[in-house]
């Protein structure tokens, strides 16, 4: 009994940690930049495949890839925002129009990245084994790689939270999220902050990708699934709330783990049911005002 519960809870925390990471990224991009970035999952996919290739071809440790993929995707995200979304923001007549246009533009980005990945890596399902030693926790068995993923997900999430609440740049980001106009008047370089936010969202994808590749199989078309989960978590936590996304990620991971224990086929259905009920009963999410 205890073993089963431990199995479900720790399993749920592992997926939950990943969900939290990817949701924080999306939350930042939408909450501050108003870009519902549906290509978020493609950034995760780039991270996962880069890690795979580096490991299989050059034997570079997936944990080292975290430090390579993160910054690389940050720069990519920063540049995409600077060239594409900032321009859209300047030309759109209102923020609502911008939301619609940026949603469509990110679909374009999704198609481009996914197709490039299909050309480079083909449509095969891939995976590798890394640190799969069994570890016994009070009778429940887990492999080392899964526990490492949980550890890194928690550390990165906490680190990011501290960055947002304790640093000057974090303060500027939160100011821009609350009121871009006033933030700009108080000397925040809003264009820079928005691009940094989008880049940070991509950075989170760049951290999630390598971790996902360590414990799950990957394909070039895997992005959409993670984007959808990120959207569900962001709504669960409250649109734009970083803390909400972190907590929401772990909650959804636990729910998924419980449902999977009874019927693996129903976990996605359960996510959607929660999602829809939540939108109907409390659309502002758990942390929303």
């Amino acid at each position: 009994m205890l073993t089963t519960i431990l199995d479900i809870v720790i399993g749920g925390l592992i997926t939950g940690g990943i969900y939290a990471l990817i949701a924080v990224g999306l939350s930042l991009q939408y909450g501050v930049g108003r870009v519902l970035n549906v290509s978020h999952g493609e950034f995760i996919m780039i991270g996962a495949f880069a890690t795979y290739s580096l490991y299989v071809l050059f034997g570079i440790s997936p944990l080292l890839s975290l430090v390579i993929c993160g910054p690389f995707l940050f720069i990519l995200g920063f540049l995409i925002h600077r060239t594409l979304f900032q321009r859209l923001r300047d030309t759109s007549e209102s923020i609502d129009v911008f939301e619609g246009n940026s949603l469509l533009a990110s679909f374009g980005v999704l198609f481009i990245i996914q197709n490039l990945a299909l050309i480079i890596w083909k449509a095969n399902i891939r995976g590798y084994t890394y640190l799969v030693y069994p570890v016994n926790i009070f009778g429940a068995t887990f492999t080392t790689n899964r526990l490492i993923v949980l550890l890194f997900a928690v550390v990165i999430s906490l680190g990011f939270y501290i960055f947002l609440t304790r640093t000057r740049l974090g303060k500027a980001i939160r100011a821009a999220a609350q009121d871009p106009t006033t933030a700009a008047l108080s000397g925040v370089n809003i264009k820079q902050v928005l691009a940094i936010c989008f880049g940070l969202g991509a950075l989170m994808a760049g951290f999630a990708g390598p971790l996902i590749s360590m414990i799950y199989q990957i394909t070039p078309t895997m992005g959409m699934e993670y984007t959808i989960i990120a959207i569900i978590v962001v709504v669960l936590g409250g649109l734009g709330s970083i803390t909400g996304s972190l907590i929401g990620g772990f909650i959804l991971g636990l729910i998924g783990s419980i449902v999977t224990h009874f019927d693996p086929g129903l976990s996605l259905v359960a996510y959607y049911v929660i999602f829809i009920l939540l939108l109907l009963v409390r659309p502002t999410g758990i942390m929303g005002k």
Partner: protein
Amino acid sequence: MDIIGGIFKRFRVPRLIILILLILLATLPLYAPGYTVILLTAILMYIILTVSWTIFSGPTRYISLASAAFFGVGVYTMAILGKALPLAAIISIGALVSFILALFIGFLTLRLRGMYFIIFTFGISELIKHSLLWWETNMTGTVGRWVVRVDHDQVYYIMLAIFVVLMLTAYFIRHSRFGLALKSIGQSEEAAAHRGINVTLVKVVAFAISALFMGAAGAIMATRWAYIDPRIAFNPLLSFMPVMMAIFGGMGQLYGPVIGAAVFTYLAEILMTRFAYYYMLIFGSVLVLAILYLPNGLIGLLQKWRKRGTAEQQAST
């Protein structure tokens, strides 16, 4: 130039063009090769999805991503009833089921606006897809279903008929008090309510009417595909495409979404057959460029050209 312009005005050329186009479309299977008929069926399908999406989402500015749900319900109606009933009856039932589903979703989503509405409509069609997927694997044991085959020309004619009825409906809605009510909801929902418009009813009815045509198109398209499963019938692309096509074409005029869908589908078809490998890459680039440089759609571009043309004319005289 002036003489031609005069003729255009006097004989109401748009109507004449529409008539000629309709006659051409109606007689097409008599002389065109089979491939053209199939291609046009696909184009008509996307035009139907896009125009019916625009009926609701165009004036009200509520972006719905539930098109796949209504289309898929039509597809499954055909797959389940295919052998039991005549074609016309199944298509009507498919349309009706979509209509009722849209009424239901419409009443559920009344409180949601903006991004919440977009995400909700997307969620509901994904929920239907995954529930059906689970049901088919666990209860019926087979994920996919075979659909009765129907002659290509017949599919084409039914699609054309749905298209014509849809265009007439869209035209009448646009020029009616109902259409005005929809438009005023898009501009300001509070103001519309204060004016005595039953905002809820108007929104839900428009949403259901748009679903009606999507369901009908899904039912007949199922026979073209022959084999279907939940992933095909409720493909999220079926929700995204109409939005892109409508924006690509421009929603200011009734013919904007038609042209957008026609150009987009044709482009997609050509890209898919000629550059299968780079199809999505080119498609994505076109999409990004279109949003960056054609904010008002193709129609906006045409209108800009026309304005420039008349300005030059006036300058020269």
